[in-house]
């Protein structure tokens, strides 16, 4: 028995140490969002697509912004600054280009030279050639791109399949918490997750069981990422 415990503790230490090797290219990411991303964090030089929720796209930036990195948001003309601040984005290190018009892609390439994360709301359909050119610049300068829309080649793409608010009644109450059902598609395959926001800030998913029961409409159980040690523990218990 003690041998088994030793083996398990060693295994756990190995899993905890493993991501450290990849960390050079990892950007600070909220731990609540780690299961959504293939490496457990945003990686420098990669593009990510988020469809269906601007809050989720901004939540990906929050930890990096709070750690002192600069972010750029391109093409979001209806930017809610209070919501962004509530999610945890430092507004004085977040540069906005609300209406770049046709320059959006070129601007994303230019700003990716300095800004650690660039959020891009693509003006229309983006061809694979433009995307590849931008990806090359991302890789060269080591910044991450979060696209709120379609993108040809991504490291991970998140699609909001369902949303449920709580706190509001028929004629009373206030919006307080939100649960998003998110489908992620990356090299791990297609996975389903639940992301919770409470009073505008992202909140750790509690026990996965309650989250799974949460979105009945979506009809999917939560499949937590196997790389997350927490998910492993809860699965073991």
């Amino acid at each position: 028995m003690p041998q088994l415990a030793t083996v398990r503790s060693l295994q756990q230490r190995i899993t905890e140490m493993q991501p450290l090797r990849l960390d050079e290219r990892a950007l600070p990411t909220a731990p609540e969002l780690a299961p959504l991303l293939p490496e457990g964090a945003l990686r420098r030089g990669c593009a990510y697509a988020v469809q269906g929720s601007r809050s989720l796209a901004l939540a990906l930036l929050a930890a990096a912004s709070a750690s002192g990195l600069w972010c750029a948001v391109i093409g979001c003309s209806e930017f809610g600054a209070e919501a962004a601040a509530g999610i945890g984005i430092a507004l004085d290190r977040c540069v906005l280009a609300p209406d770049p018009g046709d320059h959006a892609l070129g601007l994303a390439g230019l700003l990716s030279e300095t800004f650690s994360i660039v959020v891009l709301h693509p003006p229309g359909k983006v061809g694979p050639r433009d995307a590849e050119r931008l990806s090359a610049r991302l890789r060269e300068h080591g910044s991450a791109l979060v696209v709120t829309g379609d993108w040809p080649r991504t490291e991970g793409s998140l699609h909001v399949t369902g949303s449920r608010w709580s706190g509001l009644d028929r004629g009373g109450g206030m919006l307080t918490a939100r649960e998003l059902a998110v489908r992620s598609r990356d090299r791990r395959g297609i996975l389903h997750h639940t992301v919770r926001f409470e009073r505008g800030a992202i909140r750790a998913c509690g026990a996965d069981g309650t989250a799974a029961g949460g979105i009945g409409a979506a009809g999917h159980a939560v499949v937590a990422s196997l790389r997350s040690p927490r998910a492993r523990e809860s699965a073991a218990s």
Partner: protein
Amino acid sequence: MPSIERIMMVRVPDWPVHAHRLEAEATAAGAHREGSPAPSGNPAPQPAPQPAPLALVSRHLVIACNEAARTEGVRAGLRVREAQSRCPGLVVHPHDPEVDARRFAPVIAALERLVPGVAPLEPGRCAIRARGPARYYGGEAPAAIAVLEALGGLGLPDSRIGIADGRFAAEQAALAGPHDPGIAAPHPGVRIVAPGASAAFLHPLPVERAADTALAALLHGLGIRTLGALAALPEAAVGQRFGAPGVSAHRRAAGAPTTRGAEIQPRAPARDYAAELPFEPPIDTADRLAFACAGLAERFLDGLLRADLVCTALRVELTDDAGGEHTHIWQHPGRFTAADIVNRIRWQAGAMPRDVERAGAGISAVRIAPARTDRVSAHEPGLWQAGASERVHHHATRAQNRLGHAGIGTVQLTGGRLLADRQRFVPWGTADAAPARSAERQRARVGQRGPWPGAIPAPAPSVVFPHPPPAELIDARGRPVLIDGEDLLTADPAHVRFRNRETLPVHGWSLPWPLRERGWAGAPPRFRLQVQLASGDAWLLLHESGRWFAEGRYD
């Protein structure tokens, strides 16, 4: 005791009266011709006729009066009624401190041409370090007489000069009479206290000269009536009993140097750093203008740099061929480089109204002047910190070149009722967006945010419409839902429609809550309503005089 500087104090008695006279003369002269302002100087013949008694008043109190009024018994600090009863012929004018300061500036400039290092203290009073002028003119008395002659040339013959050890003693010497003990008066307007004799000179003066009213009253109560008596006390004991004001009064009374800093801080003489470039023929496109201004910007910055200055706010004046002036003051978070200046000129020219009908229309002259400067030492890049924010600034500026001035920037939170009012877009390169300082400012502003009745509790909509689009709220029978007299919805909403899109079923809604403001002006109350759709989306609606708008979306 460290040696104390010799200070020359220049004092113009009744300065507000002089300033008022100069201002009146300038306006009278300006009535027929646009002449240069007052100090062009008409020296001797002016004071020949005996002037009428005159007093300048503010809030019913006499601030200053001339000699004629003083002989009738008028004093500063008197009520106007009392002064008028003492001197029925008194001419009363309102006192304007701004005129005092403005009219004193040419006097300081004239003194600066004569002696270096003039420290303006207040309108009518300035201090000069005496050592340099004394060596140049061969003694303190000749230097003082030279300064007095210069003032006489400006039409101020009754000025007084006091020279003593330290600023306070010099001030008291300038106030002293010619036969007071310890005073040498080589000229009717000059009072000199010999070096090292300042303490003896100050000894018999009343204690009010060095202490404020409350402290002086207290000292009188303790039997300390002269500066000598105060100076005789040990400084530590004074500090224990009266604190910092007591110590500074004690040091002044003892003729000792101030506890820290120099006795006086001379101002840097004003210089004109503006640079100008005329164009013949006028230039009509912003890009050509920017190209032509590259050399101008370099020249302008060179001139500033020679004075160890950098420009942090820039005034750009564009003159078009019809003579119209287009002026704008540009702020900068750091300091202007030549490329920054050229960009500002290009943006300003690009934003000018264009008259395409007229051939040859364009810019005929550009003038750039510093609106605010800073010492160059405050803008040296540090050894370790020349990192991210410099690069960010570089790239943001390049993006700005492509998109225009307001194309890229940061957002600040401000106070306000509507969501769109609560945030402010600050174009990049405006002083407010300075990354180092804005965090503190933002924190301060959060404190100022104050209660905004009707504000939305936490989560804030992540999509905020700058111009709220109209929306329709419909009940189950297809009739519009409005707000009744009791601030409630007239019916349960069943559907909502935004612009021309399809009708969406409503799943839940909050109580409408009012935004009441400016009720005294008859502004109709506005109402907010949170609506949750069956699809899971949530919106924030705004009701204003019978119509609904979508203020934000919880996306």
